[in-house]
């Protein structure tokens, strides 16, 4: 489970401090796919980076499976698998070598790592290209490898930041199928996206974040009922318009 309580974050800029997250609070339970929606620069990536301990909140608390992210960073990282949409795997290593590298980074014993790689390659249907150089793989194969890399240590919390950006339809399907499976397995999935249709199909819970504020937090049904609307897109544009974000 992931729980954020009144999280604030600001960055130093040339014009002074910029408050990028303002009192963000939400909870994502095991088996849920929590979608953070918002335009670019809204604070989605910063939120996910705070949960994965890459950034520290200025104030507020982040709890990951009962662990305080600000205090027990290393233990939290063991629970978290992160994938970013701009991650471009390249180079001459094969997916097997890459998975071995990330296993080592996570201090997984060799015997377990070997079994885990076999299991993952079977689960993600990677056997045919497991020993081919990553450079020569298709976009879909690379995406499967990226997913495998991010979950090689079998995390309970899966954090995908814009995982489908710049992907073709086939590669998007790989991600979507995986996220569905992960939630069925009882994993807590956090997903950031600006593709509303994707969130509608995937997410059990949604948080809409605009200018660093979590405007809405709830299930799709709750949100649609509150705004008396038939689509998330309409709700999103109404909220954006209210804030003067739509020209």
């Amino acid at each position, binding site marked *: 489970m992931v729980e954020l309580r009144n999280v604030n974050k600001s960055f130093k800029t040339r014009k002074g401090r910029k408050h990028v997250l303002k009192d963000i609070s939400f909870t994502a339970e095991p088996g849920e796919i929590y979608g953070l929606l918002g335009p670019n620069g809204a604070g989605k990536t910063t939120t996910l980076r705070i949960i994965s301990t890459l950034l520290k909140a200025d104030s507020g608390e982040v709890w990951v499976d009962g662990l305080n992210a600000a205090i027990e960073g*290393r233990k939290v990282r063991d629970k978290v698998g*992160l994938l970013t949409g701009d991650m471009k795997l390249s180079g001459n*290593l094969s997916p097997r070598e890459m998975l071995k590298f990330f296993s080592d980074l996570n201090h997984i014993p060799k015997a377990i790592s070997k079994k885990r790689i076999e299991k993952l390659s079977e689960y993600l249907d990677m056997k045919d290209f497991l020993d081919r150089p990553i450079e020569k793989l298709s976009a879909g194969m690379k995406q499967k490898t990226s997913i495998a890399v991010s979950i090689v240590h079998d995390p309970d919390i899966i954090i995908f930041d814009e995982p489908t950006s710049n992907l073709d339809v086939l590669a998007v399907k790989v991600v979507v199928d995986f996220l569905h499976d992960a939630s069925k397995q009882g994993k807590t999935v956090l997903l950031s996206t600006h593709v509303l249709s994707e969130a509608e199909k995937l997410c059990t819970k949604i948080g809409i974040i605009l200018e660093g504020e979590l405007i809405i937090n709830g299930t799709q049904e709750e949100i649609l009922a509150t705004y008396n609307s038939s689509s998330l897109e309409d709700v999103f544009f109404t909220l954006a318009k209210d804030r003067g974000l739509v020209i």
Partner: protein
Amino acid sequence: MIKDAFIILRKELKNILKDKRTLVATLLVPFLLIPLLFVGMDYMENRQRSSAEDTIYTINIVNNDDPVFLEILSEHLNFNLVSEYSEDELVVEFPSGYSPGDRAQTLIYFNSTSQKSSFASSRIGNALSDYSAYLADTYLDDYGIDLKSLYTISISQVDTAPEEAQGARFLLIMVPYLILIYVFVGAMSVGIDATAGEKERGSLAVILVNQVSRSSIAIGKILYAVTVGIASSCMTFLGFLLAVKLTGGMFGQSVTFSGFSFMTMIVLLITLIMTSAIAASIIIFLGSMAKSVKEATTYILPIYFVVVILGVFTMNMDPSSNQLLFLVPFLNTVFLLKGAIINDSTFLQLLMLIASDTVLIGVLVYSTSRLYNSEKILNTV
């Protein structure tokens, strides 16, 4: 921490060993480039010299038709005489009304932009000296004096340098310069790729979310750049040895390696490792600060140019006796290498290099680790 750093090192090395293009650029090119360059330059120089010697020059000799001068000149140069003046030709002008034996100011007209014309001018100058000696000898002969008996002092030079250091002059000039340059060049491409390149590929954030400490990641990347920097400069050195072997010397200077004792090799190796570590630490630190490969290159190139300039400035300097210079990174590399080549380096100098370089490396490793441990490393991702 070191064990974790080796995970990063192992992965990066595995990647580069499979990358033929990078291997060629980092290891094979330095090995082959210097022999190719030196052999090529040697060949061109020999070819130009023999071409200049074989050329038949057209010379206009003004105010002197002494057949003895023509005979002496023919011993120095192949030529055809012309009587017309032309701007393109070589002209040897004696004063008007000159007769052999007169005191005369002779002018040689030549074109300094032409290598052949310059070569011929120099040979004509030698011929005129011989002609002058011949005339003086003839004149003195009338008085029963032998010209050679007037040369009361004959000169011979004796090299007092230790036998093993003789013939090492060229090594003193080139080895420190080449090692300094290639330590940087070798580490630069891989160092930038492992830092700013990692950011551009978007994989840094994923690498940071695991059980390995961020300091280990920083140290692992530095170790990687050090390894490639050492490999690259070793290949450069081997290429240099090959070039010397192929040409037998450089630009008319004989080169010997008789001064390369076991101790010299140890000092060379330690200096190489320390210098590579500094270069790699600088590259990894600046590369980690940059948002992109382009920005990293902008940060690192000025430092590289400073090192190149330092290499050029110290090329013709003798090994320094000023001990304080052995505390200045990069400069101490140059002077210690120069000293080592002629077996003139001391243990104290080596210790000073190790101490001062270690301090700088420590500061850079600490700064890089701090950068990796701070959020700044991600601000640019």
